[in-house]
């Protein structure tokens, strides 16, 4: 029978726990050079010599006294469960602070193995750690490791296989600090935490906690002085981080760099991705033509050419742009630049009811709102967290990108396309801030907000992580959105190809104008006509209610059915459509901008609504969000069309 061992992975934020978790379990847990990326526990496992090791990756924390929801997860897990072993990841460059948490955990009397990570970085800074001396001082097993490259992982696995786990010595002897307050003898450190966790906090308890931490730091200081040695290089070498920070965090130049970096990102995002997107579009048009030419009378062939192929194209065509977006997101996070943005933008964010810590969730919202909403757990105050959660849906997620790209390519002249995309992203940011400002005025609280955050050093982004991040964003997009888009495309093809023939009293193959889809679209047309849309766009708005990206595949299916020239691409077909009421092209500047604004605001994503519900524990907030954004979408689209038509 297989034996099982339960391990917890624990350490300070940004110490490399998730990298080690990935190395051990083979699962990909998102990593970045930013404190507080892991906000939820994640379970993985590995089998070593007939033993099943379950590994729980916990969010990072600095001590066992939590300041935010993600930090609370750690102490809750430690008090509610007793793992067989704690794998403690210590950042070699910040050993002082790592050991604070270590000494607290050691006092919980749980067996620990210490993994000293990032030693290469420490050596580059001209410092050395006497590991064997530290091992003796802490009386625990220490393994040197580089969780990025995997160095030391084998040794850790060997240690785990030996299964000789022992509790380590206590480094904090001042138990009377707690016992005097509790008025109890033989009070264990675990019991103290149980007491603190279950009782009201007061000034005396806060004072005890502070004294405890200082006492621990004083002991650690002595160990550090005997263990860490600075070489000549440490005094001479000007760190790259310091040189870069001189410019990137400069009170004036810093902001200029933020704008420049964002501009370059969007310029590249639009221009570079256009090539593979055009190839894919033309390739699918060519395949479609070949399939249709096989047998023009066969309904099955028509189904493949008009429903399945446009559906698949609607998914695949946007992969280059989504992949590029994730490359930039990963590079910014991994390099450590995101933390600099927090520094520069915190004072502005506060005016909008948020904090600098809202930057990462908001930026992640540019990729996908669902993980972005989950990552708000690192924001310590309730009000700032709530405002951030409700502002995230305004950010331009990757699902909006296909809609924007398609519409911009049709209605905006070539030279203004990248700028238009940037403007749409700016609108997202602007309205996220505006919403935050209004919410800040409405939500009253006595809770004190603070920003005490470690600034990570600059690091060169790992190519492997960039590739893994792309894989982990593109594959789910293709799987989830793909299934969804493909099934809607198929259902839509039937609705747009068949209609009720009252003369024969039966459903039969008909032209698109008399189909079920046309009847549905024409029913809602009076509501959307003031926005400049025809019934086909109306159908696309309805089908994309659950997920925005369905808009493109819906139009692809509808226009594929309603076409005479088979080899036309979606772009050319959309350009040639004429609005029967106005006699103008359906997709002109006025209706195009109206649609772009509609999609910039409308919260057409069921998963985002579910994520808001989960994180706020209430249906009230997703309903508020949906209603406010729907009204904004309709009003802005109406104004844009009426002014530009």
């Amino acid at each position, binding site marked *: 029978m297989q034996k099982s061992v339960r391990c917890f992975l624990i350490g300070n934020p940004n110490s490399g726990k998730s990298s080690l978790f990935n190395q051990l379990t083979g699962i990909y847990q998102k990593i970045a050079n930013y404190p507080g990326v892991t906000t939820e526990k994640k379970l993985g496992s590995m089998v070593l010599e007939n033993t099943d090791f379950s590994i729980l990756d916990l969010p990072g924390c*600095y001590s066992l006294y939590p300041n935010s929801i993600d930090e609370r997860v750690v102490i809750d897990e430690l008090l509610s469960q007793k793992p067989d072993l704690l794998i403690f990841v210590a950042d070699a460059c910040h050993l002082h*602070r790592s050991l604070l948490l270590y000494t607290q955990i050691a006092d919980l009397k749980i067996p620990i193995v210490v993994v000293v990570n990032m030693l290469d970085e420490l050596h580059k800074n001209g410092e050395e750690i006497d590991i064997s001396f530290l091992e003796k001082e802490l009386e625990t097993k220490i393994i040197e490791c580089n969780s990025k490259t995997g160095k030391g992982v084998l040794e850790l696995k060997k240690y785990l296989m030996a299964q000789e786990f022992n509790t380590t010595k206590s480094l904090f002897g001042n138990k009377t600090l707690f016992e005097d307050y509790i008025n109890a003898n033989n009070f264990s450190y675990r019991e103290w935490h149980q007491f603190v966790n279950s009782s009201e906090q007061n000034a005396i308890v806060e004072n005890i906690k502070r004294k405890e931490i200082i006492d621990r730091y004083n002991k650690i200081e002595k160990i550090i002085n005997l263990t860490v040695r600075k070489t000549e290089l440490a005094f001479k070498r000007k760190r790259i981080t310091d040189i870069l920070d001189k410019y990137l965090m400069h009170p004036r130049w810093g902001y200029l760099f933020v704008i420049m970096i964002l501009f370059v990102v969007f310029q590249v995002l639009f221009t570079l991705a256009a090539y593979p997107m055009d190839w894919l579009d033309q390739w699918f048009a060519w395949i479609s033509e070949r399939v249709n030419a096989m047998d023009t009378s066969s309904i099955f062939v028509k189904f493949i050419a008009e429903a399945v192929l446009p559906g698949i194209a609607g998914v695949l065509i946007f992969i280059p742009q989504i992949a590029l977006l994730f490359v930039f997101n990963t590079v910014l996070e991994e390099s450590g630049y995101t933390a600099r943005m927090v520094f520069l933008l915190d004072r502005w964010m506060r005016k909008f009811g948020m904090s600098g810590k809202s930057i990462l969730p908001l930026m992640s919202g540019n990729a996908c709102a669902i993980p972005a909403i989950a990552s708000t757990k690192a924001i310590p105050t309730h009000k700032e967290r709530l405002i951030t959660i409700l502002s995230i849906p305004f950010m331009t997620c990757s699902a909006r990108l296909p809609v924007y790209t398609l519409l911009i390519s049709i209605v905006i002249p070539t030279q203004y396309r990248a700028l238009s995309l940037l403007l749409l992203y700016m609108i997202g940011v602007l309205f996220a801030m505006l919403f935050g400002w209004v919410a800040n005025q409405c939500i009253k609280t006595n809770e004190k907000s603070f920003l005490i955050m470690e600034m990570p050093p600059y690091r060169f982004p790992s190519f492997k992580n960039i590739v893994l991040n792309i894989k982990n964003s593109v594959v789910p997009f293709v799987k989830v959105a793909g299934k969804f888009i493909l099934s809607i495309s198929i259902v839509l093809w039937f609705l747009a190809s068949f209609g009720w023939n009252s003369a024969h009293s039966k459903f039969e193959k008909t032209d698109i104008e008399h189909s079920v889809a046309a009847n549905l679209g024409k029913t809602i047309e009076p509501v959307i006509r003031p926005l400049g849309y025809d019934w086909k766009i109306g159908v696309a708005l309805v089908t994309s209610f659950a997920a925005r990206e369905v808009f493109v595949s819906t139009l692809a299916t509808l226009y594929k059915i309603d076409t005479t020239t088979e080899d036309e691409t979606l772009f050319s077909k959309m350009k040639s459509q004429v609005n029967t009421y106005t006699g103008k092209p359906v997709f002109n500047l006025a209706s195009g901008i109206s649609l772009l604004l509609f999609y910039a605001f409308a919260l057409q994503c069921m998963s985002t609504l579910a994520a808001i519900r989960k994180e706020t524990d209430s249906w009230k907030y997703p309903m508020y969000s949906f209603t406010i954004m729907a009204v904004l979408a309709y009003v802005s689209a109406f104004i844009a069309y009426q002014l530009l038509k």
Partner: protein
Amino acid sequence: MTLIDLEKGEHGIVYSLKHNDFLLKLVEMGFYEGRMVSIEEYTSDKETFCVSVSDSKIMLRKVEADSIMVQKCDIKAKLMNH
């Protein structure tokens, strides 16, 4: 004086912390009596600070920096004495 009174590149030694809601967090990050701190950078209106303490750079808001009482010190003289 408090941390906000120090200029960029200046060093100080923490001698006291004002009582506030984030006192424990400050101590956790290494701001406690006797620690040397230095100002790395601040935004134009001194609303956000980047402070060096225990080999790390910590971001603080003005209100947090203002709760850290420091005694200004000349790092060069200190190093020479050392």
